[in-house]
């Protein structure tokens, strides 16, 4: 008895239990093993690597001077198309994400099977990259902006729906109970109980996603789904690097302007 107490006192304090230490150690081991394995087996062609500086210099020389005249000729039209794809895709996303979000939120849909169905829709939307969505829709609807818009919309549903469901689950119970107590129908509960509470996060999520979608819709054209990516793909295929530089500059400027605008609007509405 005495001995046990003494050993308990003498025992050194440790932050983690043995099981935790084993787990952490195995994580470190796994990380190191993964990195070593990757370095060991990844295929890098050394000849390509040696002349990388030359190639980079060559690229910059070919890009300069930037072909500004290409903007009114071909880029402007596709840029407008890109912005329409992003915006229209985001609006379509909101239309689809609201019902799925409602389905997923446990406080609104009290049935676990339905919640699970909502989760499944959201996860499958998120785990398919927007370029893959674009490939699929190009195969279905043919090349063009329709495929791009749908790709943007289907990819964004997962993101918007997940965040919307989380916002819905975090609402205060008070106003909802009050509405329920006066016998309000469920549509009124949704519109007057939940909506005012999730409205700020709803707008902020939508704006954030629009910003991401502007970025994503710029590459959809590489697989033929419309927008500025089509112009980029054309320029790349013909090795017009000065045009490529102009297109990249355009994308860069638009993305930065979109981000600044979104931040300004978000500050205003939150």
């Amino acid at each position, binding site marked *: 008895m005495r001995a046990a107490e003494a050993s308990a006192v003498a025992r050194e304090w440790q932050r983690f239990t043995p099981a935790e230490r084993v787990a952490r150690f195995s994580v470190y081991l796994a990380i190191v093993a993964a990195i070593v394995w*990757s370095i060991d087996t990844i295929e890098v062609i050394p000849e390509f690597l040696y002349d990388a500086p030359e190639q980079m210099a060559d690229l910059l020389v070919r890009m300069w001077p930037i072909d500004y005249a290409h903007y009114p000729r071909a880029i402007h039209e596709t840029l407008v198309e890109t912005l329409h794809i992003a915006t229209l895709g985001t609006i379509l996303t909101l239309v689809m994400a609201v019902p799925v979000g409602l389905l997923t939120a446990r406080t609104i849909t009290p049935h676990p099977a339905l919640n699970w169905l909502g989760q499944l829709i959201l996860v499958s939307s998120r785990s398919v990259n927007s*370029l*893959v969505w674009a490939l699929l829709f190009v195969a279905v*609807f043919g090349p063009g902006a329709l495929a791009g818009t749908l790709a943007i919309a289907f990819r964004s549903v997962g993101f918007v729906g997940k965040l919307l469901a989380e916002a819905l689950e975090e609402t205060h119970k008070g106003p909802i109970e009050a509405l329920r107590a006066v016998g309000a129908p469920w549509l009124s509960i949704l519109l007057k109980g939940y909506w005012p509470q999730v409205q700020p996060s709803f707008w902020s999520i939508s704006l954030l996603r629009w910003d991401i979608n502007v970025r994503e819709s710029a590459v959809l054209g590489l*697989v033929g789904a419309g927008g500025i990516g089509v112009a980029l793909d054309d320029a790349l295929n013909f090795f017009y690097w000065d045009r490529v530089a102009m297109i990249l500059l355009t*994308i860069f400027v638009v993305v930065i302007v979109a981000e600044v605008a979104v931040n300004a609007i978000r500050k205003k509405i939150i």
Partner: protein
Amino acid sequence: MTAAAGSPGAAPRRAFVPSWPKRIALLAVAAYVIYAASLLGISWERFLIGMDEGARFIGRMVPPNFTRWELLLKGLLESMQIAVLASALGIAISLPVGVLAARNLMPASVTVPMRVFIGACRSLHPVIVAIMFVKAVGFGALAGVLALVVASIGFIGKLFAEAIEEISLKQVEAVRSTGASFMNVMTFGVLPQVMARFIGFSLYQLDSNLRNSTMVGIVGAGGIGGTLFAAFKRFDYDYVCAILIAIIALIFAAEIFSNWLRRTFQ
């Protein structure tokens, strides 16, 4: 509803007044949708034709064709290698970059260029960055790794800098008042406050890199994306279906793995 509200004498008060500006905004959005849809050549007929095409397309996708599973596995492994290396390098680089971009630790002469650098890394889509690197270092996995390193710096660097800006400066001051060197202030005053969030960002980026590493192959930067795109161009849809299933399974497995990692480090 209006008649019942309010006591006699007082002006009737409606509970939920309709807001005209909001209704007009909603109408404007609807008008925009119609305008943009017509501009992009989106129409109902086209949608219906597409539905027919879609049925045929799905018909050709099933059953998925796994006979060339060796090529598939090779592509998946390469994607994983790209993701692992890009995350390791990207995380290692974003740690100092994030510290240098934090406005409460560094003077503006350091943070402003760092912020521009992070912004530049973030602004272009990884696939576009991959195009540049394919030109610079040739076709193959290395271009993909470099492109995703850039993306990782853009994401983790920004969030890490923001996390550092939110720390409590009291602990930093306490460490500094003992005469500690800059590195000691970092290790004992700053990093303990932000390490948990940094690990969170890194895990998220690992997931995100894995997703993107399956895509950079479309422009020739290695991984399963090249196989996917090639199969697509050959209208080899049952093989496309098999690749897609494999990619989704990989991403699911990665998500489960990263959740387990997150729990271990909490």
